[in-house]
């Protein structure tokens, strides 16, 4: 594979990543949102395997496989189970509607390019051009967490933020060492399992999964 071909493929896949993050804002059903996240994880795994083949790194290929297993299959299953178990609950609207949210996504992407372009320019790797796209994904994941009031969507925002960070590390360094990446996956998996428990507890206690109801603690 030539350097140009890799660079083009990486740009395309990183762009698809960002597109899927934004798609989460447009989707309103929880099942649809979980599917979007699963798909994003698969694209991410594809990207890391592609870079692994190019750079000849077996470790990175292993990371890609683990990514499919943990974020492509296991975590979406956990989330689907949570969505099925909470059943039909009162749907809380996001603080900002779709149109303003999309405008904010655009602004965040501009900010990402502004902050990260100098960093990307100093990076000799052929994947570096897409670094701002990855950072835009991080910022938008963060925005989704703040904007959505449903606990499950907040968790998805967090996971997309995580995916963005993984992509950022992948593009700028071909991924951090294997042992670190495995530890990170373990942490994320445990975090999602704990979050699932909290979704149930919030539903039992407040009869809704609108985290806007969590406002007793002040001062």
């Amino acid at each position, binding site marked *: 594979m030539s350097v140009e071909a890799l660079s083009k493929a990486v740009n395309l896949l990183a762009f698809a990543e960002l597109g899927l993050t934004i798609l989460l804002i447009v989707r309103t059903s929880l099942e649809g949102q979980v599917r979007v996240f699963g798909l994003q994880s698969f694209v991410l795994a594809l990207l890391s395997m592609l870079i692994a083949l190019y750079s000849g790194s077996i470790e990175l290929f292993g990371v890609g496989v683990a990514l499919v297993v943990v974020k492509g299959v296991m975590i979406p299953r956990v989330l689907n189970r949570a969505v099925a178990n909470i059943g039909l609950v009162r749907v809380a609207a996001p603080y900002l509607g779709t149109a303003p949210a999309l405008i904010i996504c655009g602004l965040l992407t501009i900010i990402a390019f502004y*902050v990260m372009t*100098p*960093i990307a320019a*100093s*990076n*000799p790797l052929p994947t570096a051009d897409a670094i701002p796209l990855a950072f835009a994904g*991080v910022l938008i994941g*963060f925005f989704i*967490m703040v904007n959505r009031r449903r*606990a499950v969507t*907040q968790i998805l925002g*967090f996971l997309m*933020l*995580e995916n963005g*960070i993984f992509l*950022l*590390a992948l593009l*700028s*360094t071909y991924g*951090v*060492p294997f*042992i*670190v990446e495995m*530890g*990170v996956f*373990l*942490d994320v998996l*445990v*975090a999602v399992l*704990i*979050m699932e428990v*909290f979704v149930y*507890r*919030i539903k039992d*206690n*407040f009869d809704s999964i609108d*985290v806007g109801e*969590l*406002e*007793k*603690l002040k*001062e």
Partner: protein
Amino acid sequence: MILLSLLSIPLAAAGLIALTRRRALTELLHLLAALATLGTGAAVVAQVWNGAVLTAAGDLLRVDALSAFMVAIIAFLGAIASLYAVGYIRAEFDGEHLFRARLFFSLFHLFVFTMLVAVTTDNLGVMWIAIEGTTLATVFLVNLHQTRSSLEAAYKYLMLSSVGIALAFIGTALMYYAGAAKAGEIAVNWSALRAAAGSLNPEVVRLAFVFIVVGYGTKAGLAPMHTWLPDAHSEAPAPISALMSGVLLNVGLYAMMRFKAVVDAAVGQEFTARLLIGAGLLSLLVAAVFLVRQRNYKRMLAYSSVEHIGIICLGLGFGGHWGTFGALFHVVNHALSKSMLFILSGNILIKYHSAEIREVRGLLHAAPWTGGLFLAGTFALIGLPPFAPFISEFIIFRAGLESHPWAAAAGVILLVIVFGGMLASVNRMLYGEPPADLPRGDTLRVWLAPLAANFALLLVLGLTLPSPFVAALVQVLRVLGV
């Protein structure tokens, strides 16, 4: 070898306690593990004190003076909190709640384990994993009482800490990139990164440190990322509040100190100084606003932690020999005094069944030991002599007046506001007429005995500043390159 046992004792204890069925056995295992952790911790610290740098498991674990400093705090205060925890859990979760008692003790040791890994590893990625692990280990502890407010606190804590720490991962990855791109070989180990600091790309290093301050600053409770802290620290059971406020916040600071040492060597001190002084002053301001007329004494203690973390950041930002010395000294002092006060707050809660300041009347009369120690701890916390925080705050602001006079002056004014606010609140609790139906005498009086150690240390460090202690801190300064 000793390093591996230091880590495996609490991990094994967490697993074994989860398997126990009888309360007596749970408590016995818990106490044995706590004392064993203290003993091995002391052995590790002693070896490092004699000039050794311990390594184990390849280059994964490495304990220098800074790590040993943190091991000492974790092991010592872990032991104090675990002794009190036995009495506290007996009082709060009696026979029927055996499951939750077991969960508490098991997670307690898992929590200690994650903190110990975070401070003994040389690998910045593993440090990150361990610090995220501290959140995961404590989140069910915050929700242990299973009230609505503790649920809210735990959920916020989990989400905000996870996002914060995710940002710290960007900083870690950028630092790794700065090291990998310049140092020739890939360096995610702190010692390698520190050695190669001079050749790192300054632009990447600066950006990395911004993410580190925001990310680990969230775990350390720096404003404006502190919003989870008053909720989580006030809702957690007292022994856990003591460890979260007195120890865990310092683990976040520890991570920042590690990165600061690299960044200072790469781009000079002024950059980190500006960030840390800004965050420190903002934390002091937020704490001052919420400490005046605070209505809940556990939240009062939590906001006071935001204040003290701010003071420590000011010390690190003022920098130089004395600024950093004062910051490290203040880490010790805050850990000793805040863990003591949170443990006492557990006693007050059990006695008065309320965390509201206006419900607590005549504490000195109704529970003389609890009240007396609470008064002494408050004096220490607000910086009155003869207690040690007075000395460390004096050193920090003395250093600040020389390097950053305006910031130091603003800090002193905010300290005075905090002083007045906290003293007024505690005053209302200590005096007055206790409720007529309240039985006299301290609850859990025997279990307060370990606090004698905190009290004595605060007094001794404040009165004499022993030379072995100073020499130990100077060793830490050398690791930080100050």
